[in-house]
């Protein structure tokens, strides 16, 4: 023991940091902030540290070339001892990272921590969020599989819509005219050098400001932030009712950080690594790329927006969202901190959470995507074929063969892009069905050119049988009337 302290003293005589470290560790924080609500920032730091370690471990093996990256991931997964586990830790760590950063952000937002004098801490935090998302996306690209390959194409398509600069941004992003070796090399540089370097620098600045300005005091309803008085009030609060950060508060950070790591280790061990999915071979087009979890909401949004709204939403949406986050501390820099007195803030969070949650859950089953193999893989259910005439059954064949099933479900199997047709005859008359099939419309292609008259007749005959036994099919009242009045008239001249 004495030897250790002697060695310590020897070093400190030279680096002279012990005093400063002790002072930092024991800096006083308001008693109430030694709370379980204040552990998410340090939690994010712990997971980030884990990402750095597992990232370096993966870089020992990973080959950042378009030709070999996928093979090196297979090798990590299957032949290098516990390579799969390091990949799982890094991949799940990325999800943990985004999740913890978002929770941290919601907490500091609801506790009014962005208000005076911590505006810059918040702004740096916004950039840290963007970089975390940038790491998540570039990391998905480094997992150079089919999803990554087409995912970059989607990124390029989105970037290309930027006015004037779009095509240059695409070339800069891809490192050339197409997605190839140069693309992966630059995403590797971004993911391993550029963004982590910036992240480390900004995390340092973020933490420095937390120390210099003091941790956000516990928001009390009625305790109003005023620029003229806040610093004095905060200093008084810390003097009167402060506790040293170590040990009064840090034990919760330590426990939470340890818990996060244990959870990450368990999840990674149980669920294993992400992919890689199919080989990044541009000639294999039987693929439906999906983004990783935290970008699913964007995938849903791009499917559900009206086409003409898309480009404005893609280009203006992020500017407004990020602009609002950056301006927030200046717009609402003073006033009430407690979420109990800020209903709009609480509603905003609830709304954003519901919107993102809904989009993410929708993207889980992607009803807007056609089911590309439904026409050959999902037969027409038997109940739709029983007691049908030969013509109607021929129509069922046409229905399958013309890929109608890829967008229209029957008996809950098939695409959900168009309406389910189980009881289409109830809502559409024969003439309406013919028109819809031939001319399309309402987001359906026109099949006029690709159906012979005989095929159309058979198809519509089949569609007309699609109604519940208890409900009769829709009919055109005027046609019924016309046939009633014309029937005797036409009968009379030919006795």
């Amino acid at each position, binding site marked *: 023991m004495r030897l250790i302290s002697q060695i310590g003293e020897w070093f400190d005589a030279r680096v002279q940091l012990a005093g400063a470290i002790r002072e930092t560790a024991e800096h006083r924080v308001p008693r109430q902030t030694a709370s379980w609500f204040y552990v998410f920032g340090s939690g994010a730091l712990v997971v980030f540290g884990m990402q750095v370690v597992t990232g370096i471990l993966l870089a020992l093996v990973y080959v950042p*070339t*378009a*030709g070999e990256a996928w093979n090196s991931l297979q090798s990590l997964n299957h032949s290098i001892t516990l390579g799969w586990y390091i990949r799982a830790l890094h991949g799940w760590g990325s999800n943990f990272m985004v999740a913890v950063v978002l929770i941290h952000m919601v907490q500091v937002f609801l506790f009014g921590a962005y208000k005076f004098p911590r505006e810059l801490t918040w702004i740096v935090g916004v950039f840290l969020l963007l970089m975390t998302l940038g790491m998540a996306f570039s990391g998905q690209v480094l997992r150079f599989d089919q999803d990554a390959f*087409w995912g970059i*194409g*989607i990124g*390029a*398509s*989105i*970037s290309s*819509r930027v*006015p004037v600069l*779009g*095509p*240059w*941004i*695409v*070339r*800069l992003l*891809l490192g*050339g*005219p*197409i*997605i*190839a*070796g*140069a*693309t992966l090399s630059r995403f590797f540089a971004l993911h391993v050098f550029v963004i982590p370097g910036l992240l480390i620098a900004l995390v340092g600045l973020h933490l420095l400001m937390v120390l210099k300005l003091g941790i956000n005091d516990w928001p009390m309803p009625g305790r109003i932030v005023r620029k003229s008085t806040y610093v004095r009030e905060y200093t008084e609060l810390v003097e009167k009712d402060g506790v040293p950060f170590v040990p009064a508060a840090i034990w919760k950070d330590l426990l939470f950080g340890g818990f996060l790591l244990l959870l990450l280790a368990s999840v990674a061990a149980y669920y294993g690594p992400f992919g890689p999915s199919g*080989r*990044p*071979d*541009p*000639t294999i*087009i*039987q*693929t*439906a790329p999906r983004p990783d979890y935290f970008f699913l909401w964007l995938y849903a949004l*791009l*499917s559900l927006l009206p*086409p*003409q709204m*898309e*480009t404005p939403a893609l280009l203006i949406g992020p500017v407004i969202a990020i602009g609002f986050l950056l301006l927030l501390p200046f717009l609402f820099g003073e006033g009430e901190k407690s979420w109990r007195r800020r209903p709009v803030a609480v509603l905003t969070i609830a709304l954003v959470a519901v919107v993102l949650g809904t989009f993410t859950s929708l993207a889980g089953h992607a009803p*807007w*995507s*056609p089911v*590309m193999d439904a*026409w050959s893989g999902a037969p027409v259910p038997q109940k739709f074929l029983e007691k049908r005439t030969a013509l109607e059954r021929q129509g069922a064949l046409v229905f399958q*063969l*013309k*890929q109608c099933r*890829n967008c229209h479900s029957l008996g809950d199997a098939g695409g959900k892009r168009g309406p389910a047709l189980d009881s289409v005859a109830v809502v559409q008359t024969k003439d309406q069905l013919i028109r819809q099939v031939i001319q*399309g419309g309402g*987001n*359906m*292609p*026109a*099949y006029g*050119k*690709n159906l012979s008259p005989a095929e159309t007749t058979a198809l519509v005959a089949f569609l007309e049988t699609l109604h519940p036994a208890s409900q009769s099919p829709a009919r055109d009242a005027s046609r019924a009337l016309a046939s009633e009045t014309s029937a005797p008239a036409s009968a009379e001249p030919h006795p």
Partner: protein
Amino acid sequence: MTLPDNMTRRALLVKLGILFNACVAALLAVPILRYLLSSAVAGQKSAYEKWMSLGPLTQFPEGETRLATFTNPDVKPWDGKTAESVCWVRRIDADHVQVFAINCAHLGCPVRWFPQSGLFLCPCHGGAYYEDGSRASGPPERGLFEYPYKIQDGSLFIQGGELPTPGSPVASLYTIEKKLPCA
């Protein structure tokens, strides 16, 4: 005689030192920026203007639409399989074809051809196109991207050395008009 601090010889030397470093930095910035931006600026035309072979025209029977593979013009040994690209070739008649990019005009996912219904369908967001590449339904705001082509000595060539994207001027170049270089 005493001078104010900012007018001493040392202060002047500090300023000179900063100025000197700024000049050197500006000098170095030129090659660094040119290197960094080279992919965006250089070779833009050359990649687009190169003709790539899709093979003999006989592989594309009249009235059918088939997938064709080509090797990109500027290939590096480490590109692996990404050195290749694919496109859809629609042979209209003996002298006329249409060559469509594989990428959906919405966000670039690979579209698939269904000969039975005569449609190209995109698996991502459900974009659909007719056999001539025109927009049928779904989120795309335009038809499929078309590559310019020429038929030479019974072989089909295209200019397809660039990933077509909705905002790229090259993409709009692809469809300015149905140029028939062989006509």
